[in-house]
């Protein structure tokens, strides 16, 4: 158990290091990296413009920038945003809780909707309900996050609901199939034939078998929710990590983008890792 956890943490650290390097390299090779719009500001003195230019040049060597960045990271210094001219630590401290709150709400709502619909379609066996659920999930799986965010702005609805609606189809479809496979198992068919109620069968026979795979889906759903929150926060003007990432990407703010890539990768990779570990532990204990 401890060895598995240690290996998973090592893998997580490796992925994060590579992700940061990837983010930094992408920005460095981007055209116009060395240019800064502050250089065109006529109010700045020649010394200030020179300092801006020098600051950009100091970031141009990616390995040096990244090594320096990691050394500062160990000391707890995340650097300063070139675009917002604020310490990145403060920016993350302000915005991360907002995104985490939205993320938690979106994932929770998506799971409640997806799981409830999947269970209801299996329990009732109603074709109308199944068709409605299929239609709903099909519509939301085909809707771009940015467009749904626009509609939510128009209707003044909470953005986390938009994220939940975009994540729920995956959860519904996966859970629906898992539960259906669960109901097709011989011991479940026997229990049903012996007159056990569908609720009882669901709780005692189908759910325990499907739970490990559902746990694996939890990590995926968190990753999905982070992905859809990016355009939603940018369009709905929510001051979270998504909006910050959007601003950093368009403003080519290298230090901020590298930090955000690390934060996003950490959230995604750790969610996947823990759900995977939980699934493995549960499967092992069942065996």
């Amino acid at each position, binding site marked *: 158990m401890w060895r598995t956890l240690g290996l998973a943490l090592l893998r997580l650290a490796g992925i994060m290091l590579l992700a940061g390097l990837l983010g930094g390299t992408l920005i460095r090779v981007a055209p116009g990296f060395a240019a800064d719009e502050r250089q065109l500001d006529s109010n700045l003195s020649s010394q200030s413009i020179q300092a801006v230019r020098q600051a950009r040049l100091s970031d141009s060597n990616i390995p040096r920038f990244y090594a320096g960045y990691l050394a500062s990271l160990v000391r707890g210094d995340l650097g300063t945003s070139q675009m917002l001219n604020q310490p990145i630590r403060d920016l993350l401290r302000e915005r991360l809780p907002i995104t985490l709150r939205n993320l938690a709400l979106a994932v929770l709502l998506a799971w409640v909707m997806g799981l409830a619909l999947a269970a209801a379609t299996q329990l009732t066996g109603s074709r109308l309900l199944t068709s409605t659920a299929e239609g709903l999930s099909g519509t939301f799986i*085909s809707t771009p996050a940015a467009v749904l965010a626009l509609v939510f702005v128009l209707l003044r609805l909470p953005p986390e609901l938009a994220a939940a609606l975009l994540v729920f189809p995956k959860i519904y479809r996966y859970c629906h199939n898992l539960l259906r496979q669960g109901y097709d198992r011989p011991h479940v068919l026997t229990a049903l034939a012996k007159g056990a109620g569908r609720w009882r069968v669901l709780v005692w026979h189908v759910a325990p078998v499907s739970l490990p795979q559902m746990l694996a889906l939890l990590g995926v759903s968190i990753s999905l929710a982070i992905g859809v929150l990016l355009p939603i926060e940018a369009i709905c003007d929510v001051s979270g990590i998504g909006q910050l990432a959007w601003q950093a990407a368009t403003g080519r703010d290298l230090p901020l983008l590298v930090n955000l890539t690390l934060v996003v990768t950490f959230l995604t990779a750790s969610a996947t890792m823990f759900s995977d570990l939980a699934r493995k532990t549960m499967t092992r204990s069942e065996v």
Partner: protein
Amino acid sequence: MKTARIMAAIVLVLAGAAALGAHYLAPAGYEQQFRMSPDAPPSTQHLLGTDDLGRDRMARLLYGTRVSLFLAPIAAGIATILAAFFGGMAGYFGGWVERCALLFVDLFLSIPWLFLLITVRAVLPLNISPQNSVIITFLLLGFLGWAASARVICAGTKELMKSEFVWLARASGFSGFKLIRLHLMPNLRGTLLAQFWISVPVFIITEANLGALGLGVTEPLPSLGSLLGELQSVIVLRPHPWQFLPLVILIVVVSCFQTLLNSSEVRT
């Protein structure tokens, strides 16, 4: 279910035919401006009205559907080839090659797909010709969207490498390219095709997301994504039902792809 699939296939064929025949259905083209009638409502002359610049919405929708519907499969093809290369290599060689390849795959999977795409698209030049923006957008989709498929193909290749007929082939002296060409590729064809078809609707939606955020295909060339981007001002200022048709078309097209892929093997 079979009827739904047939209906979906018919709708896709019709959409593809309309997009291909855009030149005949909307001879005005996607960039001709009718300056006397900007932002006009639907009429016999302009079936879906005109946009702010006086361009025929119907023509733009047809040409936009053509761009999205025909370039997404090309991007999916690139992604599938890359996935086959990395996934196949990992499954074939195993050991440290597999570990390194899967770490690389995990890296791509750990960074949310849209975050990565927006970051990469944002660092590329924005003042490029419309034709180049189309190429860049769909190449990016292809080059960044292979990771999930690579995992599936790696698992499929590993399974095949353990099969008796591959052992027999190896014992008979088959190795390297011959083994891949004669035994692995034919048996992986189904998996590769499934991954290809799964990628097509995903790429259509992702292009729409990029377009809606202003990072997709640039003006005046339309795509479903760039047409959705126009909704940003439309929704806030004065929404008219016919202006939402690109969204409806997008949902219908992607739903049809989903219906065609609607088998338990693909879903779980």
